[in-house]
């Protein structure tokens, strides 16, 4: 059993709630992302690959963060998963379930999934409605924005709490400034830079029984 716990910095991420960041007041309206391709490495270093299943995590729906995986009993050291949608699913027509295009995570005019989405308003935004909208996608070659994630499981347990910190989108190798780049809606360099940032948004919360 895995639970994705969405945060902004240290605070719980609640849609429509405001947060401070570098003197800027930020309100998050939407925070959604795909996770899939779960794998686990046990104490002996053996990797267990689970059947491919896609999950759409939505900060507005805390139940969406609960994922039950059928794992053989054992002690696991690492958890691996993909943030986003693999290239095959981007070219295989209309999918169902979590990948159904009606979830607003698919570009219909230039085929491809939005791997992750962060939308809101910020006092520093220079565009209409003080908005910022980051729809990060792209699956081809260097424009790929899906990211492989590996996290250590410090205490072997059958429960893992994974923190997803939306603030990390603005930190990391690319210092994203809402005042300068309030919008990203297409595959390309900016999307890849943001993806490199969000690749580091996950961490494991010390497990509780």
């Amino acid at each position, binding site marked *: 059993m895995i639970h994705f716990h969405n945060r902004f910095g240290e605070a719980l991420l609640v849609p429509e709630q405001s947060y401070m960041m570098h003197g800027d007041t930020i309100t998050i309206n939407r925070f959604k992302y795909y996770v899939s391709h779960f794998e686990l490495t046990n104490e002996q270093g053996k990797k267990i690959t689970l059947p491919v299943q896609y999950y759409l995590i939505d900060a507005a729906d805390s139940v969406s963060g609960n994922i039950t995986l059928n794992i053989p009993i054992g002690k696991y050291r690492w958890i691996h998963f993909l943030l986003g949608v693999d290239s095959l699913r*981007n*070219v*295989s*027509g*209309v*999918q*169902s379930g979590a990948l*159904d*295009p*009606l979830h607003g995570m*698919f570009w*219909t*005019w*230039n*085929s491809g999934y939005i791997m992750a989405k962060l939308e809101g308003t910020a006092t520093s935004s220079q565009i209409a409605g003080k908005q910022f909208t980051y729809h990060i996608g792209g699956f081809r070659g260097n424009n790929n924005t899906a990211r492989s994630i590996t996290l250590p499981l410090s205490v072997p347990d059958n429960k893992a709490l994974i923190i997803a910190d939306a603030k990390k989108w603005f930190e990391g190798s690319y210092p994203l400034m809402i005042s300068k780049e309030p919008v990203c809606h297409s595959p390309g360099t900016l999307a890849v830079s943001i993806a490199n940032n969000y690749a580091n948004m996950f961490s494991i919360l010390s497990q509780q029984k």
Partner: protein
Amino acid sequence: MKYRKTIGVIVVICLICISWVTGSQYFKPTPVKLMVPKGWPKPVYDFKSNPLTKEGIELGRQLFYDTRLSKDGTISCGTCHQQFGAFNTYDHSLSHGYNNSLTTRNAPGLFNLAWQKEFMWDGGINHLDLQPLAPITAENEMAESIQNVLSKLQAEKEYRRLFKAAFGDEKVTTEKLTKAISQFVLTFVSSNSKYDRVKLGVDTFILPVDSSFYRNNSSLNFSFGVDQSSVFLGLSFKSF
């Protein structure tokens, strides 16, 4: 004791039969095979993922001409993709969309889609099944949300029947909706026109050049030829 066992076995067999009849195994749509015209390459569309059936094509046709796929119920796929124009609109420079809006392009003709890898004028769409989602949701085309389309169709008894006939159950989903539309448009194959037949050498163009009209109008002469080597068809008008 023995009888009880026999009765038990009979009951179990009956239950299996009932579940077989009511279950999905009973669902048997009529398969349709897409004719690949002589000399044409193999289609690129994956028919295994969406086998053509009479019921699927029929549902697709219904959807293609249904204006309820648009926000205000005025525009269907067929509004711009008009059959008499090879499924385009040749008298418009730009297609007309929702609420008196104009699009930035004209609807392309639809034919031989099973052999096409990319869709829209810019090739932005990489799979035929995905194609209807763009015009349905574009603000200057049909301006509707996918969810609303599904809800509107689900509410119709006739559509529940058609979806069940085509896909085995009444639930209207994005995947079924788009696959049905694909099935219908995949049947638009432009083979076996007179031009195709002449190219294959099984027909000829007999023009009325010997008719009295042309003989009596010496100022006008039509010359017409089929160049077999380059499969180039030329029609030239010469005035003497």
